[in-house]
């Protein structure tokens, strides 16, 4: 149980809330709890990358550099050519999605290349997440896309080029949810 603070601050907040509306149209907070997040604090935690590339950091990485990072940090789980190992395959599966045995990989299934960057940056390598530099994440992303024949061997990816990578299954998703669909 966390101790609750005194009621003094609540009274102050209520008093603020009771002030007449000012020039700003945005409604004022009802309680005044929490404190402003600084730009520096937000920058440290704001790690997501959107499909349009929003959120990609400065830096760059080549397929060649990515081969080294991948071999050191990824291959033990995903196989040296991304064929899979203890953890799932990252390559292969093209043309299988409508078959009886679909193989869903980055190459065959993922609709956005940016998602690969986002996921590696937040969650990989499994034993040391958020330990790679931005350059390393760009590089290993480039290498996995190269293994899937989606970028050439001399590719260098950055915030401008990564969102331009065309993923084969880009149009393989539908929404909104059509359910209820059965019975």
């Amino acid at each position, binding site marked *: *149980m*966390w*101790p*609750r*603070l005194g009621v003094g601050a*609540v009274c102050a907040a209520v008093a603020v809330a009771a002030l007449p509306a000012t020039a700003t149209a*945005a*409604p004022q*907070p*009802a*309680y*005044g*709890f*929490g*404190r*402003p*997040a600084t730009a520096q*604090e*937000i920058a440290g*935690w*704001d*790690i*997501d990358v*959107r*499909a349009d590339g929003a959120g990609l950091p400065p830096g760059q990485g080549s397929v060649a550099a990515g081969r080294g990072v991948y071999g050191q940090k990824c291959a033990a*789980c995903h196989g040296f050519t991304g064929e899979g190992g*203890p*953890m799932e395959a990252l390559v292969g599966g093209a043309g299988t*999605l*409508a*078959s*009886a045995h*679909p193989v*869903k990989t*980055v190459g065959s*299934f*993922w*609709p*956005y290349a*940016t*998602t690969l960057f*986002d*996921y590696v940056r*937040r*969650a990989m390598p*499994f034993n040391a*997440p*958020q330990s790679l530099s931005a350059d390393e994440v760009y590089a290993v992303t480039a290498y996995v896309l190269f293994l899937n024949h989606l970028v050439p061997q001399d590719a260098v990816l950055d915030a401008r080029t990564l969102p331009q990578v065309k993923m084969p299954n880009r149009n*393989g*998703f*539908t*929404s*909104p*949810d*059509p*359910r*209820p*669909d*059965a*019975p």
Partner: protein
Amino acid sequence: MVPRRGVLKGAAALAAGTTATGRAVSQSRSNLPPNIPEWMKTQGATILSPPYGLPSPFEKNVIRRQRTRTPTQTAATTTTPLQDLQGIITPNGLHFERDHGGVPAIDPDQHRLMVHGLVERPLIFTMDDLTRFPSVSRLYFIECSGNGSWNVLPPATTAQESRGLLSCAEWTGVPLATVLAEAGVKPGAAWLLAEGADAAAMTRSVPIAKAMDDALLCYSQNGERLRPEQGYPLRLLLPGFEGNMSVKWLRRLKLGDQPFQTREETGQYSDLMPNGVARQFTFVMEANSIITFPSGGQRLHGPGSYEISGLAWSGRGRVTGVEVSTDGGRQWRRAALQEPVLTKCLTRFRLPWTWDGAPALLLSRSIDETGYIQPSRAKLVAVRGLNSHYHYNAIQPWQVAADGTVTYVA
């Protein structure tokens, strides 16, 4: 677990040596009438032994179990022993687990929630801040979207193995809408990214309408603070939505004008249809039910009176009815619903049954307030094929054999 009437038939059950749930039964008669039980002849254990109480040692088989073998023990799932529980509340130690990067050990004084993006005032909250807001307590189920199995499982499958990625608790916290109002949602904010403070930095995009409707920021579960494996000290709760979206160890909410297209809503947790196209953002857990007694692995000890009992639920609202068949679906009878019957909450149903000793195929199907009726496996597979992996809510049959054994049927 107290033996059910009719299940333990005195000497017959003792001869069998187990209860319906598999618990070993002592062969000794020295504590039975006319003898005085040994535990009446001495003082019992002292108070506070232990300070935080534990179940009787005789209940040691009522535990979570790993669902399937996974490459790691941190990105893994465990199931709730539905067949061993009564009522609708899942004890906190038995709530199912789905972790994507293990259970972090978070000091609540060091935990922060950041709210930013399309807001007027980016804010950081401490746990003291969050518990200061006006709070609400509500009963909701949480169900993993991977609950149920599109594959045919072995005959020995139990209710826990069939539908155990399902739990229900009284959750206490602050409505998400209250906290978002503090930050001031800007026009154009349509989605919200929820991010966990675990090793997976688990992320899902949530429609702003859900955030403003019944979403909660929870810090307590069944009266006590969240268990670590349920997101201590703070989790999102999205009633009726697939469980992985109720992001645990919540550290960040970012508002945006479009979904963030994380791995968990593209490569994972999307539903592949027979034509090779995947449904994305399939949030709602549709109406479902399971008979927990009699269920797989249990045994009926002879013909006679039994009470069929089970759980029904719907992510779209209240369960309005449950129908039970004991003859494989030729005839259906309405089960009684135990109050309270709450929206997006487990509902307990019961139906008296006289077993004549012949083989019987038990089915249950739930109906929710939208009029939706839980489908058969055949109907569901006809529409979705066998590769969609998630959102399996077909009727679960149990086969009762003439010798009383109960087995799974797809």
